[in-house]
């Protein structure tokens, strides 16, 4: 078990390093020079200004040297310095990470719980109107663009009904503490989390349903029926557990990418997360910050993959940790 984890971590590190190198070049291929961007923002840019900036960021060094310095930094867990924000990248990311984790974690939990619930219900009552309703709803949510859901949700729940706040992480300036603060954040969380959650909920519901129907055709289910177990027990104990394995795998794969994929939602809802940080860094050619976010997101994906594997292995006795 320990050696399994160690092996996976070693692999992950290699993948991460390869990723750093690739992204490094990829990002630098983009047209646009951070110094020029910043000069642009400053509303003036004589040559001296730009040369100063380039020197300061080390952009005057040859690319391989820049890469070497960057990789060296990464190896000592230093993600470098953000050009634009004049702060260590790790500080910036750590400021934003909790918000993203809260958002995607909530969305993920909601979507997994309800997705499986609805999927299981649909499979249990396959062919009935309940199944049809769930399936159609899932298909529609699956097919609706995320940003579109977000816009509609804001119009409906913030503007028309004024139930929920439409932007931000908390009520700015309210100075809530303790439980009121928790409730305040929760209220802000509802819309963005559901927006992300709906799509994934639909995914998991569809997958759970399909998987359950498939497992339902397997022989051991017949055995269970031959025992005289009631359908409910069979579905819950025998079918669902087996059917969840592929769902768990998929969910694990997605959990990681969710973190970096929340760009749209974070933008629309002004959620101070890491996806938006990435997008802004991209628009400002803030190389170090952008790379930093990518590294962190990828690390997150790898971590989730590892967790999924561990969960999978603990759920499925057939896979054993190689001794």
């Amino acid at each position, binding site marked *: 078990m320990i*050696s*399994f984890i*160690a*092996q996976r971590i*070693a692999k992950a590190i290699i993948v991460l390093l390869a990723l750093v190198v690739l992204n490094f070049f990829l990002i630098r291929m983009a047209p646009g020079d951070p110094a020029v961007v910043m000069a642009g923002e400053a509303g003036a840019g004589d040559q001296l200004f730009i040369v100063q900036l380039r020197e300061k960021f080390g952009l005057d060094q040859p690319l391989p040297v820049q890469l070497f310095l960057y990789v060296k930094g990464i190896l000592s867990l230093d993600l470098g310095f953000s050009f634009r924000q004049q702060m260590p990248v790790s500080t910036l990311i750590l400021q934003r990470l909790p918000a993203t984790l809260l958002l995607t974690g909530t969305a993920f939990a909601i979507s997994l719980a309800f997705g499986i619930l609805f999927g299981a219900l649909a499979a249990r009552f396959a062919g009935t109107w309940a199944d049809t309703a769930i399936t159609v709803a899932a298909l529609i949510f699956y097919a609706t663009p995320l940003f579109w859901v977000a816009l509609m949700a804001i119009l409906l729940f913030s503007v028309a009904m004024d139930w929920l706040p439409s932007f931000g992480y908390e009520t700015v300036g309210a100075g809530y503490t303790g439980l009121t603060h928790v409730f305040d954040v929760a209220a802000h969380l509802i819309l963005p989390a559901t927006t992300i959650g709906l799509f994934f909920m639909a995914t998991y519901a569809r997958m759970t349903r399909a998987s359950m129907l498939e497992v339902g055709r*397997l*022989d*051991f289910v*017949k*055995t*269970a*029926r*031959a*025992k*005289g*177990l*009631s359908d409910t*027990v069979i579905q819950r*104990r*025998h079918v669902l*557990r*087996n059917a969840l394995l592929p769902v768990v795998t998929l969910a694990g794969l997605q959990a990681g990418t969710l973190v970096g994929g929340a760009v749209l939602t974070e933008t629309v809802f002004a959620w101070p997360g890491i996806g938006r940080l990435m997008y802004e860094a991209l628009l400002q050619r803030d190389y170090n910050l952008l790379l930093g976010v990518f590294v962190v997101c990828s690390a997150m994906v790898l971590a989730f993959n590892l967790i999924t594997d561990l969960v999978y292995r603990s*759920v*499925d*006795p*057939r896979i054993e940790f*190689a*001794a």
Partner: protein
Amino acid sequence: MTVAIKNLKLALPPGGDRAYAVDDVSFELSAGKILCVVGESGSGKSMCAHALMGLLPETVTPESGEIRFEGKNVLALSPTEWLALRGRDIAMVFQEPMTALNPLMRIGDQIAEMFEAHGLLTPKERRQKALALIREVGLPDPERAVRAYPHQLSGGQRQRAMIAMALALEPAVLVADEPTTALDVTTQAQILKLIRDLQRRRNMAVMFITHDFGVVAEIADRVVVLQHGKVVEQGTADDVLLRAQHPYTRALLAAVPTLQPPQRVSLLDRSKAVEVIGLGKTYVSGGGWFRSERRVQAAKEVSFDIFRGETLGLVGESGSGKSSVARLVMRLIEPDAGTVRIGDVDLTKIGGKALREQRRRIQMVFQDPFASLNPRRKVGHIITDGPIAHGVDPAAARKRAGELLSLVGLNAGAMERFPHEFSGGQRQRIGIARALALDPEILVADEAVSALDVSVQAQVLDLLEDLKARLGLSMLFITHDLRVAAQICDRIAVMQHGTIVELKSASLLFAAPEHAYTRELLSAVPGQTSSSKAA
């Protein structure tokens, strides 16, 4: 009389093989008696069993008739009434022990669930009962077995667990749908004995489904013979096996090979077609930076010769390495050691183009008639692909393919059809035609008839025998069925744990087995007493 099935008619959905899965079937099960239901694949055996359990597929509906259990017509039961009946009064053992158990649940829990389903006992008592049952069916190391997951048990052990489960509530009726078909002969013998013993001890009525007359002879009190969903014959075991009335039953019985090998002339003075010397193969799986690997020695020091025109049989229980040897001989896998010599060519020393060219000299017939033909290629292509790859002109290849098809008993029109349009036996013939298309010197047949019904099996065996004689082929014939081996092989090699423990002429092997394992294997073949009666 415990169960009486009267004029049962089960309708199949439109577009099925036929209108009724089971048509006007009547038979009875009585306490303390084993009723064997026999018939070829698709004859409706399983449907009878499922109807009795109330587990018919949704698409199959009982149209008329009734199943009486203790006076009630169970076909009219409500779903909840079924729940009470299933498992408690009628229990079932399925064919495939691999898939019939929930892979994520411990064996003990799956047995205990039987009590839980009917609200009996406390959890603790259930566990104790489960342990007792596991003991009763003779699983080794019961404490461990209770906590084991299905994949940690062998096939026979799993089947014992299934039986323990079925027996948990001491049902009046046990339905067993081909419970031993997936098992080795030796294991099969043990399971048959177990069922027989338990049935006697508990005075159960057993409905035992099989297509193997050996098994029937071994355990049946009464026999029902099904064909195309209709009962063609039923009676006591002796009546059916020894005094069969219906031609179908007789044909089935006649197709069962005997254990007595026919007299054959020795071919040892001929030249060698294949020489196999010291083959060894160890499978290494897993392994990586930090992981230790799993090794299975599938063949060690395997040596034998096959003479021209000779059939060498390779027998042994599942996992003994038979297929591995076949694949080594075919160079489908790389050997770790040893040589395979065809004439003066050492197959293990060449590769790439040279190997491809030599391949035409040794061809293979595969086990599964469904899996061995590409479902998306027409039969004509399947047969001519090989010769064309070896440079034969396509038109000539097609002509030859037509001839080969008629040689194996199909007409040339078959070339334009796809494999799924043929029956299992016909497909196996196509597979043979494909192998012959390259005019090989040697044919390797790995379980070439195991997947076929007895009657079809007999036809294919005859065909092989005939072709071999006509074309002067040598053959490596792999089977786990000793009856088949007895019929077709000149000499037989017995494999155990990757080594050949005994190799001698067929008649000698059956008459005077030397190795302990060979003897065990021979004695496990079911139905020896009765079938000799029948013969």
